[in-house]
């Protein structure tokens, strides 16, 4: 059962990255790579800027090893954490809540809730996020993804009742978009790294984006207009527990392997966020077991 849960974790991790929770949506990365989907202009952006920054810093070696740069500023992603004192304080509070409340609940949920129920909950909270993704895909001018998301929502509503995900089986894959990403695509720099109470890692830009997404979300609107805050609370709790349950082993491992858990999480989150903004959905091109390409550029391009 644990293995199946772990498998689902990876399949859903990208889908569910936006789930609120102290459990820090941390577990993947960003980073420029050849062959990224060219669905927004950041897919090809900042390599040259980064190299200049690296050379200015006297670190020629850096441009050979990694050209990970903030999409807004072209600066190295690890550049600075001016709010570190506040962030570490907030991180400690979130981490404490995670240890004493969220993780025990998530462990219990993963162990005792039927797998079908876990699957349905995960699908349902993803389904509820589709309208916000749809709107932000439009704001980014990404018509193709807006169409995919709109189709997903209709198919999963009509056939899956929001609880099952037949759309993915039809090749309509979920990819989260939020207003923070929309701002980034339109050139707004990330601003300082910011750890939000309960919600975990973010930036000033992404925190502002969350506020906009709240008003874009029809579910939130429904809860507000009917004065049923329990709907919002229930949804948030389901998102947090489901996400945390899917990443129990991974976060345990990150904690064990770190000297400075805060810094490790910050790095992973930043890399992941950059990758999200670039719509980099994988770690590289898929390689089939067919005849390898002879032109080196063919493999890199999807």
């Amino acid at each position, binding site marked *: 059962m644990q293995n199946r849960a772990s498998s689902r974790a990876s399949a859903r991790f990208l889908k569910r990255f936006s789930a609120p929770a102290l459990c820090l949506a941390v*577990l993947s990365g960003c980073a420029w790579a050849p062959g990224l989907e060219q669905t927004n202009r950041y897919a090809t952006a900042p390599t040259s800027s980064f190299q200049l920054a690296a050379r200015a810093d006297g*670190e020629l070696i850096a*441009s050979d090893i990694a050209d990970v740069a903030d999409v807004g500023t072209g600066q190295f992603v690890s550049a600075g954490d001016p709010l570190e004192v506040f962030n570490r304080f907030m991180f400690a509070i979130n981490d404490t809540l995670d240890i004493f409340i969220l993780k025990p609940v998530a462990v219990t949920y993963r162990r005792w809730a039927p797998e079908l129920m876990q699957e349905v909950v995960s699908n349902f909270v993803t389904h509820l996020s589709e309208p916000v993704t749809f709107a932000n895909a439009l704001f980014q001018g990404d018509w193709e993804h807006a169409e995919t998301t709109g189709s997903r929502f209709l198919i999963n509503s009509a056939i899956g009742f929001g609880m099952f995900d037949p759309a993915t089986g039809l090749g309509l894959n979920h990819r989260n978009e939020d207003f923070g990403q929309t701002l980034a695509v339109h050139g707004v720099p990330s601003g300082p790294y910011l750890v939000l109470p309960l919600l975990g890692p973010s930036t000033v830009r992404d925190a502002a984006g969350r506020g906009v997404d709240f008003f874009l979300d029809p579910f939130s609107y429904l809860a507000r207009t009917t004065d049923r805050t329990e709907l919002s609370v229930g949804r948030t709790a389901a998102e947090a527990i489901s996400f945390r349950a899917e990443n129990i082993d*991974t976060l345990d491992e990150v904690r064990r392997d770190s000297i400075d858990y805060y810094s490790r999480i910050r790095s992973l989150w930043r890399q992941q966020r950059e990758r999200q903004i670039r719509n980099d959905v*994988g770690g590289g091109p898929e390689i089939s077991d067919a005849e390898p390409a002879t032109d080196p550029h063919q493999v890199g391009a999807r």
Partner: protein
Amino acid sequence: MTAGITRMFRGVGFAFFAAALAFAGPLVAPAAAQAETPAEFLEDFSNTALTELTGDGLSQDEREARFGSLLEEGFDVPAVSQFILARFWRTASEQERADFIVVFKDYLAQRFLPLFGGARDVELRFGEGVPLQGRDDLFEVPVTFVPADGSEPVRTIWRVRQQASDFKILDVRAEGVSLAVTLRDEYTSVIRQQGSVAGLIEELRRLIDSGQIRPVNQQS
């Protein structure tokens, strides 16, 4: 062990696992069969690693010794160390640099060596290297890890630099996470807190001695 490897495929550990196979490297390829492309190099590298590190009857000391030499030959450890320490590399003494490289290799050995026990359950598919930055000596090579149990393949990118007739690995990215960038971000933060590279070395040594960075099912 297979379950452990499978779990490693899931989540952040991807980059670290990919690095494990990368570390397990090339090395002892005879001169006549020297790799001509970065993809060939990585393929030789991983094959050699699996052969060298998963043989039956190897003692833990022998495995660690072999891992160390593979790491030395397949990875540009000094360059990666320099990248990870960032600006602190310049202010570190020669002794601190040497000490860091030693403790870093120990960390990698403890972190990754146990993973090789189940590595035979994974098929590796290599793409062609893509030249970077308009250069003919720096490449990214896509490698897909396909678990034998039918679970989801993991796509990774290995960054390789050619030096003379040799190739060396500089970094591994999986699911977007760069091993070098992640360690650089964390370790420079630790140096700032500790006040020196020596402080980082001490912390790393403490982590290694605690044994907690071994995969859970390998901890004594």
